[in-house]
């Protein structure tokens, strides 16, 4: 139990709660239920919660699975600095966002779920967890120039490269045994 990262679970819950708020709100607005202003609010709250919770935090040790396309939202969430990094603030924010949606029957489930997520975020904050952005590792480009050698300039048959360097040609053939032209 010692190494559980509660924030990850709270993140999943908050994302699900955001979607529930969104769905409940859309249904109530479409059906023009009594008190549909609460539903309109819950749509907005749902969208905000989903956007905030979409980027997953980096785990303390081990690799983290990113959500698809989260890097764009990570850049935005990172900008807000301590407001998003601190989980106490997130817990309070979620609790506050959840309350107004509790007045309408179709969004009350979203309220309860977001409330539970807020509670788990509080637990994570107490245990000192923080939101850390997942940075993109700079891809090392393979250096193509180093391994590729230029093609040979002379036609075959070619002596090995070492032989060419050790015996520089003087423009003519060097005979090992002196030849007398008769």
């Amino acid at each position, binding site marked *: 139990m010692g190494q559980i990262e509660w924030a*990850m679970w709270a993140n999943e819950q908050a994302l*699900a709660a955001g979607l529930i708020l969104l769905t409940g709100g859309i249904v109530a607005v479409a059906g023009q239920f009594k008190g549909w202003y609460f539903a309109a609010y819950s749509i907005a709250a749902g969208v905000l919660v989903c956007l905030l919770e979409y980027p997953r935090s980096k785990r303390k040790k081990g690799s983290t699975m990113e959500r698809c396309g989260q890097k764009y939202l990570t850049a935005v969430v990172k900008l807000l600095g301590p407001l998003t990094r601190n989980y106490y603030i997130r817990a309070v924010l979620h609790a506050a966002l959840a309350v107004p949606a509790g007045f309408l*029957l179709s969004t009350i489930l979203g309220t309860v779920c977001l409330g539970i997520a807020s509670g788990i975020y509080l637990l994570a904050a107490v245990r000192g967890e923080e939101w850390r952005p997942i940075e993109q590792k700079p891809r090392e480009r393979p250096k193509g120039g180093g391994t590729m050698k230029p093609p040979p300039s002379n036609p075959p048959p070619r002596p090995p490269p070492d032989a060419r360097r050790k015996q520089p040609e003087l423009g003519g053939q060097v005979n090992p045994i002196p030849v007398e032209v008769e």
Partner: protein
Amino acid sequence: MALSWRSWLANEGSKHLFLFFWLSLNVWLFGKTFLLYNQGLQYYYLHQMLGLGLCISRASASVLNLNCCLVLLPMCRVLLAFLRGSQKVASKKTRRLLDKSKTFHVTCGVTICIFSVLHVAAHLVNALNFSENYNEEFVTLNAANYRGEDPRKLLFATVPGLTGVIMVLVLFLMCTASTYAIRVSNYDIFWYTHNLFFVFYMLLMLHVSGGVLKYQTNLEEHPPGCFNPNKTLRQNLTVPKAFEELFPDYTTEPFPEDPLVPEPFVQNRFMRVCSEEPKFQSHFPETWFWISGPLCLYCVERLYRYIRSNKPVTITSVISHPSNVLEVRMVKDDFEARPGQYVILHCPRVSALESHPFTLTMCPTDTKATFGVHLKVVGDWTERFRDLLLLHSNQDTEILPIFQQRRYPKLYVDGPFGSPFEESLNYEVSLCVAGGIGVTPFASVLNTLLDGWKCYKLRRLYFIWVCRDIESFRWFADLLCTLHNKLWQENRPDYINIQLYLSQTDGIQKIIGEKYQALNSRLLIGRPQWKLLFDDIGATVGYNSSNSYGTRFEYNKESFS
């Protein structure tokens, strides 16, 4: 093209057929229940009050019944291991379906979540309709106490409502903790929340005992829409739609002058006069029938597993291998296992609540009762376990061996449970691919072959093991060399084709050890080239086999998260 179609059919065909069958069953149940509540006469007045919400909530409830029943069955591991082992009961195709038991459990779980959302939404609408369409005529049919009662009271102050709300919360907790990301990173959260399923089932039993929705029992004496002479004419007589469609002119007059030939029961109904008031009765909770069977089966199985694993094992030796791997050998009375199976280890001194699965690397045989596991130290449980074991074995170097056994921590073994790797010996040619510590199921297969290789259907084993670190190969280097030598001695050197791959080459050391020459010559650097391997194996098998239709590859795999 023909080869890949036949391979697909062999690998995926039965799984998709089973899925199609399950899907059709769900669709049929949904449709049947929907039509029953939409058209059934015994629900006529209820349908008037609640409308479409009644049909959707009941239809989704019947799908939920089915899936809550089925979701428990893939988790009965002892039963599945038994089915896998008994060759008479299960053919190879059925065993391949058993490999997908966890996927089926997940599918049923997701279906439960989706239909719960539908069921809750429909019941919310029902609560509103119960409140607004309070029926003064048939008071017992109502769930509300008066017209316009706050629907939230219906939701939170009744037994079905309250249990339903708590079940939704439990489902929410279980669902959010079961995602792949959480299982991979914090398995504990998944495990502890998933054990809330028991609370879910108990609440479900209570939820259906409320009996809020009632059906009419006396259809003969009071066909719905019949004429009640005692009622005043000022009341709006609502008649069934079927009646309205056939006799649009006569809906206000109960006795037409020129009756056409209508459907028999409409004629009977409209001719008839109600002889008595309708009587309503609650359903017997059919959910109890659906879920009691699997729940009892699962509880019996857990009890059996607990009794079976209650006797601690005796640890005979603990060997430390390079790259953080520990081998533990132990004995236990009446323990039988087949190669490829796994056990769950529980050590109270390490953790009172956690238990972890490990594949057996050595199974007990007729001559030798020792069995063993290889475990890689990655997390806190395995670290503490290793520290406890090695601490004890270090202390007892001067004491007689018999005392060593008494100092080891108590270890309980639950299992063995089946896995797809048991199939390796049932094919003529097996290609076993392993990465790192994932080689453990194949190690038990190799140990079994070491005892006797002639009695199995297997004629050739291609063994491909990919590791990052060269020291990892030493875990089973002795086993591989011994098997290789034995097969050479018995004149079957081509029985096993060993290929070892080292995927990371930053070390200078490229040999496993001086005495493992057979393995050093089979060590390749880099990752395996699969296309070449498959072409090679396919050509060999195709050439050797008598049928000319080519080679069929059947794929057995296991996922660990």
